[in-house]
């Protein structure tokens, strides 16, 4: 296990320095993908996976001891449940008409209610009703969920995989 480069102390100085530099960029890109999910390719799942990959990079480069305190398993798990509940809550929001009814779209201004012109256009960020909100909920869920799996398996596999 020691030979694969992942251990308590992480990898070499070069990798760690580059990681510190790139980490923030990946996070920004991930949040951009989540935020613009209704305008450009991407969305909550893709952006969440990008952010989770930043966490995984941190974990691999700095080692499990290096990220202690930054990434708390219990906090991540709770956040994931909050994301899932938020998504379910947004789905429940339209139950006056039907489950999953998008009650904010095209309400004319205000909160994500702006309409968009037909045909190709540059895009309106404040549009889409529940869609951007659901993107955020799913993004939160996916980033914390995948990070949780990675942390647990990285730490646990060494403990449980060999008797």
């Amino acid at each position, binding site marked *: 296990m020691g030979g694969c480069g992942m251990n308590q102390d992480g990898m070499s100085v070069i990798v760690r320095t580059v990681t510190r530099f790139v980490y923030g960029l990946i996070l920004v890109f991930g949040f951009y993908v989540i935020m613009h999910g209704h305008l450009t390719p991407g969305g909550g799942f893709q952006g969440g996976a990008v952010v989770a990959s930043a966490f995984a990079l941190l974990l691999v480069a700095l080692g499990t001891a290096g990220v202690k305190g930054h990434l708390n398993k219990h906090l991540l798990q709770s956040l994931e449940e909050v994301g899932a509940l938020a998504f379910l809550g947004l789905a429940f929001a339209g139950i006056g008409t039907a489950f999953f009814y998008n009650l904010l779209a095209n309400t004319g201004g205000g909160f994500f209610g702006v309409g968009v012109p037909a045909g190709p256009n540059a895009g309106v960020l404040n549009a889409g009703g529940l869609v951007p909100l659901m*993107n955020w909920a799913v993004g939160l869920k996916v980033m914390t969920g995948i990070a949780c799996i990675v942390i647990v398996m990285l730490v646990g596999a060494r403990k449980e995989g060999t008797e």
Partner: protein
Amino acid sequence: MRKALLLVCFLFVTAFLLLAATSTRPFGTPNEAAMDDYFIANAQGEIAVNNVVTAVVFDYRGFDTLGEATVLFTAVISVLALFRKRREDEQWGGAA
């Protein structure tokens, strides 16, 4: 014996899949696109979203997405449950 049986199954499934691939309609020419054309035509008007795929994922087929989020949640809970901290009497070879 077991290996021969597996091989027969494998060859059978291979033939089956290749038949499926060759008898599908040609690549790039959908038989029927009424549902998808509706999405392309109405995503901007109904949902006010430029990305049609996002409109499908979060609105027209939003329930699938809820299911998908649930699948991920299930996997996270399962993995966390497997690697959980166990009690004293639950170590290797503990009680049934």
